[in-house]
Structure formats: structure tokens, C-alpha cells
């Protein structure tokens, strides 16, 4: 296929702090449940200053992988492959020839195989061992999740990793969307994954002094920062003609993707960069600000992000900003860094499909600096024709996707 195609989503998969299937994840989001809890994944969590994170729970790798395959898979790749299998199963696609050759696998991750890295450093530096596990390098490389999905699912088209910290998954899905739209590939399996709750990584985040001690309260007065999360979400994208021809169930349509770089501060959010990415996504989608009903915000829960994102929404949407329902999925699943954009796009697509805006939980009271409608604490029935999902990364790299109800 060549030319310009409408791009639809026909499969979704998720491994999240609120459940290890899309159905469980979405049910918990609608209920406003919290996936946050004590840190259990690291050795000696009692030594850490930070006590809470949003961990994936009840994930038994042996339920999904044979022992031999497992020795090649860091937790970050396990999440990715499990989510990809769910998405592909839902899509009903079989990747035989020639579709296999025309299917892209593009997967975002912020930091790759941190568990493997942490374990090998522990052996080398702490235990003074002279040997690490033989597959240490191919397990921790940032492209491992993309490679493992491609191998596990038999996808032989263009495949690579995208790394842009907290925007990795949104960049990955955006590029996959553009490739399918342009006819460069006939299908894409895309998303993001992260498994960063390791001793060394948590120490790194502690040193940034941006984590909340108790709860993630995006856009609320009294918010004290972000909470680390983990997980993966993967989706199957294909041209509308192909989905229709095979009578696939269409879950939603991706219609726009915008990107920008702040070229300013390494970590401080930048109003201009956020606005340019949102406007680029709307332009790409040929949507006007007034066409949007729901925004899945980046909403990290830090003082700086939420205030700047609010200003950016005012700037990008003008007077219509006041009419938007805006929520932060991170209030419930923490900040899954390179997976965040994919988990949040799943929430956005299902919000549109089911006409429900998921809430921002942990919301205490309004902050004068955040003066929009953040759907506080309880989900809301809301007909949604079009929505956007924001991701703004450290390093000043911004990515925004726009989706529409499929009709």
C-alpha cells in the first residue's frame, strides 16, 4: 500500500501497576484506583529514602515465558513482549508472509534494562565477582524490547528503539503512525516499556529531589512531586482499508502527531516547547482546538510541570481550555517514564471509545496556578470525539498524539 492512509488501532496490550491486561488496567482507571505502594522490587528497600512507587504486581514471568527464553529477557522486555502478545491477539492479525516483512516494530524506552544493569554492577562492584551473566549486554540494551517483540511475534519490517525519556513511547507511536499513514509499512506494533524501579535508579531519582513521599497529586494544591512507575503498553496500528477488509474491530483512530524541542533547560519544563508540540499535533490532525474534548495530560505531579502544562493548555487552546476535561493517569500509575506515553494513549483511546474521562486522583483542592478542569478524583461520563495525549520529557523533548473516535 502507498499513499496517505487513515490509521486505526486494532489491538491494545498493557502491563501496568493497575493490572496486567488492558481490561484490568482500564477498569481500575475508571474506578480511580491507585497503583502506588511500598517499594518491594529492589534489594534493601528499607535503605532507600523514597518509600513508594507504582510497581507492576503479580507478574510471574514463568507464566509467560519458558525458562530458556527468560534468561534472555530483562523485566523491561518481559513487559513489552507480554503487552505485544495481548495487542496482537486482540487485533486478530497473523504475521505471515508478506505482512511480516511490511510490519514495523517501534518501541520506546527511557532507560532500557535497568534490572540487568543494577544486578551486574552489584556483582562487579559490591560482591567483587569477576563474571557477570553472559547475556548482560543484549538484555540491557535499549533496543532489547523492540528486538524481543520482533523475534517473539515474527515481525520482520523496520524495527528500532526510541529513547526520549518520559516521551519515548509517544515518539515511538507517533513515528509508527506516520509510517503507516505514509504507506511505508502496512502495519505497526508500537508502544513503550519501562522497568526502572531498581536500587540505583531510585537513588538517582532521589537525588533530583522531585519525588513525592506519599502520593502523586497532579494539578492539586499540596502536590509534592512524581512517583516512579513501570510497565508497558503496546498497540497494533494499521491502515483503515486493511482493518475494514478483514472486518477487524476498530478501537480508535490516530489522527495527529506533533513534536518539539525546548532547546532550553535540561529539566525545567518550557511553555513554548509544550505549546508548539500540541499545536503541531492539532495541525497534523487538521483539528481545531475546539474539536478536542479530553486531554490526557503529562501531569507528573511536580510543582513545575503541572503549572507550566496548565499555562501551555491555555496558550494552545485559548478560551476552549476551560471546557476541556483534563486528567493525569500518572496520579494512578505513577510515572512509567518511557512507557508512560503508551499507557496513557491506551487510556486516551479507551476514554474516547467508552465516553468516559478517567480521573486525576489524589486531588485535594485547587491550586490557583492550575485553574482548569482536571476531573478530580472521580471518572466522568463524557462524549469525546477527539482527544490529545501529552508527553514532555527531560531534555526538553516533547511529543503529543491526537486521536479520534472511529466512525
Amino acid at each position, binding site marked *: 500500500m502507498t499513499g496517505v492512509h487513515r490509521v486505526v488501532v486494532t489491538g491494545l496490550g498493557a502491563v501496568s501497576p493497575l493490572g496486567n491486561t488492558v481490561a484490568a488496567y482500564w477498569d481500575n482507571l475508571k474506578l480511580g484506583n491507585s497503583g502506588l505502594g511500598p517499594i518491594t522490587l529492589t534489594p534493601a528497600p528499607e535503605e532507600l529514602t523514597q518509600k513508594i512507587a507504582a510497581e507492576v504486581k503479580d507478574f510471574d514471568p514463568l507464566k509467560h515465558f519458558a525458562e530458556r527464553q527468560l534468561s534472555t529477557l530483562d523485566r523491561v522486555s518481559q513487559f513489552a513482549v507480554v503487552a505485544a502478545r495481548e495487542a496482537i491477539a486482540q487485533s486478530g492479525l497473523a504475521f505471515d508472509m508478506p505482512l511480516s516483512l511490511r510490519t514495523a516494530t517501534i518501541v520506546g524506552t527511557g532507560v532500557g534494562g535497568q534490572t540487568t544493569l543494577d544486578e551486574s554492577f552489584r556483582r562487579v562492584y559490591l560482591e567483587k565477582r569477576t563474571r557477570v551473566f553472559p547475556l548482560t549486554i543484549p538484555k540491557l540494551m535499549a533496543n532489547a524490547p523492540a528486538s524481543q517483540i520482533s523475534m517473539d511475534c515474527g515481525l520482520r519490517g523496520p524495527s528500532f528503539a526510541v529513547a526520549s525519556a518520559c516521551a519515548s513511547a509517544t515518539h515511538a507511536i507517533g513515528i509508527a503512525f506516520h509510517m503507516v499513514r505514509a504507506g511505508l509499512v502496512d502495519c505497526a506494533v508500537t508502544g513503550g516499556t519501562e522497568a526502572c524501579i531498581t536500587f540505583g535508579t531510585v537513588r538517582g531519582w532521589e*537525588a533530583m*529531589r522531585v519525588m513525592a*513521599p506519599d502520593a502523586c497529586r497532579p494539578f492539586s494544591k499540596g502536590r509534592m512531586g512524581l512517583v516512579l512507575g513501570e510497565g508497558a503498553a503496546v498497540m497494533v496500528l494499521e491502515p483503515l482499508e486493511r482493518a475494514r477488509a478483514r472486518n477487524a474491530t476498530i478501537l480508535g483512530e490516530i489522527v495527529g502527531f506533533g513534536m518539539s524541542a525546548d532547546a532550553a533547560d535540561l529539566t525545567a519544563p518550557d511553555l513554548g516547547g509544550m505549546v508548539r508540540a500540541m499545536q503541531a499535533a492539532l495541525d497534523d490532525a487538521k483539528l481545531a482546538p475546539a474539536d478536542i474534548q479530553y486531554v490526557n495530560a503529562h501531569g507528573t505531579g511536580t510543582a513545575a510541570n503541572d503549572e507550566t502544562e496548565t499555562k501551555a493548555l491555555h496558550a494552545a487552546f485559548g478560551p476552549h481550555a476551560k471546557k476541556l476535561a483534563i486528567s493525569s493517569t500518572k496520579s494512578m500509575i505513577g510515572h512509567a517514564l518511557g512507557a508512560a506515553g503508551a499507557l496513557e494513549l491506551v487510556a486516551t483511546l479507551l476514554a474516547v471509545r467508552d465516553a468516559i474521562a478517567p480521573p486525576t486522583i489524589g486531588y485535594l483542592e485547587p491550586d490557583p496556578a492550575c485553574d482548569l478542569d482536571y476531573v478530580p478524583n472521580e471518572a466522568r461520563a463524557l462524549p469525546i470525539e477527539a482527544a490529545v495525549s501529552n508527553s514532555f520529557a527531560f531534555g526538553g523533548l516533547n511529543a503529543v498524539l491526537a486521536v479520534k473516535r472511529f466512525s
Partner: protein
Amino acid sequence: MSDVASGVIEIIAKKKRVDKPTVELSDKLLDLGLESLDAVEMIFDLEEKFDIQIPYNANTNNPRTEFETVGDVVAAVEKLVAQKKS
């Protein structure tokens, strides 16, 4: 000048972003042009140098306004150093 004072001044002198040959106890932090990452790095340097823990969350604390002058930082560090000894 105490060891703490000279140590604090040395650290802040490296982080300042204004063209000023010396850092004095009476200098205001805001006038030295410290940015938010500078503050986080300054706190790390202070903790490392004096082996202390400074409770600090960038979302709710702002050392550039909570501590008006370099002397205020010195006083706070001296207090934490004394607590450690007792």
C-alpha cells in the same frame, strides 16, 4: 571565618552565574543567579562535603527564596553539622 562558612562559600562560588569575583556571607542567593538545577547540585555538594542530610523537595522547597543570603545557608549547615555531632 568558620570551616563551614568557607566550605559553603566555596560551593556556592562554583554555582553562581553572575560575574562577581568573591562570594560574601551577605550576598543574596537570588542575586547570584542560581537556577533550580544549581540549587539541587548545591545541596548535593553540601551534603557530600559535610556528611549531612538536608531534607529538600524541589516541589515544595526553594532554597533560593527560603535562604535569603549565603550566611543563612551557612547557619543552616552549621546547625545540621552540630546535630550530627550530638
